[in-house]
């Protein structure tokens, strides 16, 4: 053993290099925090409806079908980037988009949607940001895939791209996914 112990530093160093090497591979994702909500029920909420003031949007209403919960805001640069893709998703009719308008003045949000188009089935208003915290959001846009039982299946951070849609979201939907009730609007 006494001669072998001099190899220990080299062995420890080799292990360290392995860890650092893996670290480099993973470094582009180092700021992406995996969501602890995956596999858990979506936070229950009942919030004002942006389009139909006086009405409310609640999780109870959304039960029974798949939906994409998309957190956005007019101040968010990346949200504009994903706007065309969201409109495309709406066109396809595969799954409805439920929007959470994060920290916006409702009038700003309405004029934004008028200008850019409205890809959402319904939009909930979260003016003070407390709902977004419930979902563990830390930057817009963030999108959650929720199943008919109300369980969060997947979280996507950043603007949704065609690739993300094809690779991450579509495969997670059941094959015979029917357009959700009331998706055309």
């Amino acid at each position, binding site marked *: 053993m006494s001669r072998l112990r001099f190899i220990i*530093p*080299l062995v420890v160093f080799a292990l360290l*290099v392995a860890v*650092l090497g893996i*670290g*480099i591979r993973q470094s582009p994702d180092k700021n992406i925090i995996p969501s602890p909500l995956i596999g858990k029920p979506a936070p229950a909420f009942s919030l004002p409806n942006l389009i139909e003031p006086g009405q409310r949007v609640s999780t109870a209403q959304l039960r029974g079908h798949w939906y994409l919960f998309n957190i956005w805001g007019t101040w968010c640069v990346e949200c504009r980037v994903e706007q065309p893709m969201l409109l495309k998703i709406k066109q396809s009719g595969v799954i409805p988009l439920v929007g959470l308008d994060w920290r916006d003045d409702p009038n700003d949000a309405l004029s934004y949607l008028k200008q850019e188009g409205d890809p959402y089935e319904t939009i909930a208003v979260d003016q003070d940001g407390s709902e977004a915290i419930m979902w563990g959001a830390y930057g817009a846009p963030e999108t959650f895939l929720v199943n008919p039982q109300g369980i969060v299946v997947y979280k996507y951070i950043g603007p949704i791209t065609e690739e993300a849609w094809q690779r991450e979201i579509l495969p997670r939907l059941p094959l015979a996914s029917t357009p959700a009730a009331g998706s055309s609007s």
Partner: protein
Amino acid sequence: MIPELGQFALILALLLAALQAFFGIVGPALKRDRWMAAVTPAVTGQFVMVATSMGCLVTSFINNDFSVRYVAENSNSALPLFYRVAALWGAHSGSLILWIFLLACWSIAAAVGTSRLPRAFASRVIGVLGVISFGFLLYTLATSNPFLRLDPPWPDGESLNPILQDPGLAGHPPILYTGYVGLAVAFAFAGAAMLEGRLDRDWARWTRPWTTAAWAFLSCGIALGSWWAYYTLGWGGFWFWDPVENASFMPWLMATALIHSLAVTEKRGLFKSWTLLLAVLAFSLSLVGTFLVRSGVLVSVHSFAASPSRGEFILTFLVLMIGSALALYAWRAPLLKSEAGFELTARESFLLFNNILLVTACATVFAGTIAPLISGALHLGKLSVGPPYFNPTFLLSILPLLALLSVGIHASWKRGNLGNRARILMLTLIAAAVLGCAVVFGLFTGGRVLSPIGIGLGIWIILSSLIDPIDRLRRHISIPRAVLGMTIAHIGLGIFVISITSVEAFTAEQDVALARGSTAQLGAYEFRFEGVSPIEGPNYSGVGGTVVVTHDGAPVAVMHPEKRKYWVQQTVTTHADIRMYRVSNVLVALGQDLGDGRWSLRLQVRPLVSFIWLAAFIMATGGMLAISDRRYRLARAPSPASAAVPPAVVTRGEAG
């Protein structure tokens, strides 16, 4: 023209470094005297080329040459001249040039310093330094060339991050890097010893001054960085256990252990392979630190803009450099044996624990720093490690160290009989404990359990360090510089411990909302807010507040916190105003306009905080004083005759 010259000089430096490495290592191996003689011209040439290259880059900055991309990205014509020069090391590529330049400086110094040592050994030392230079030059030219041109040149630059436009910017990186890079010399000495297959007490004596010098610079560099963070960024915070801070702290811990281990090797010829390993690891940690900061693997606001390819290159460099050093160690170290003995209470024993505790502390910081990486690599989830981890675990190692110090400096070599010192030590311990408690509970109320321990330990260290010099003065014996240096350094440490404990225990801080004319109270301090007015600077504008501070009615200062908006980047930065009053620092920072003339303000009183950095400087001074001791200048090359005849009195049991 000038940037081309700079790049060309860099390429020449690369070639010269290669020659330096080749002649330095292969020359002694093949016993070619002419080759060994070529090392000095090679290293001199490399230094000249690197200096030229650096000079060209500086000139480009001074001349606002925005055809050079690095200048355009980091400077601006409105930037004051001082910051245009300092902007050179403001980002990755330029900071590498600084690194390489300092390495060349140390190499030249080492060439001069080893000129009277055995030729083969000295060549190897410079040769190893050449390998390191070569690696960094290659990396710079291949991935981070600061002389790249922009076509067409930008009309003006992006300017320097406003936070970096500060005198601290000028001082912190060069001094810190001098320390970082200086550890390469100890590494080179270790490398030379391993290549030679021999390590003796002379080797330890030769290595000590270089290590201590690098350590002193590192101490100052870290302290400067902490001080700068304090008054620029941290709302009064000065240490965050940030990965980049840790990257500079770990080599410091290792270097401290190395200094003490070298003492044992020099004195008794013990701990040879251990000292060798420490010398390799200290610089290795410098390199790993460089990697961590630039590769982007860690979340840190301090890290350079990174890319995976940069990280991969440095990692390869690390593997080659450190891997071959450790492989060499595994091969050669078993040969190093010593036959000397020492008792449980001897100084060697205390220094052994000193090393164990320092290395444990270093390993602890290391574990916390790379834990997020390990957790990610093993898919254990995303982890975050902050001060609540580092503080208690670090103290676990450091408290015993501080306690042992006061006794250890009085233990004699080999036979550990404290003799008549024991009584005095007991008295100083009691005095320190009493003082510690008195300070904490008498002057202030509150303070945590560790506070009297911390202050007591600090006082004990100071008192204990003074025993020997006072005793010598009384008996009219001279105090060698090495002893004086050690005393000063330890006293500095004591001051450091007292200051940090005081800051942690007695800081008072509060965020308040004040209207013009209202006051807020913080302990005995009263802060009266006098409103804000517009301000203007060379490349910024903003608002400045006026706050009148009094203590128990006596005037303290009129403070002017500012909020600046820099024109180019359009970012708003907050400049707290910090003044010293008696031994405390008072900090006022301007927050936000709350409307109706009310503003939010941060008020903070931190006792003894400035002494933290003063203490670090004192430690460094002690180190430099110790180096100047005469015995390090006696680097007589042993003649073949004297090597064959073992010295009469000591070291009969030396092998190897």
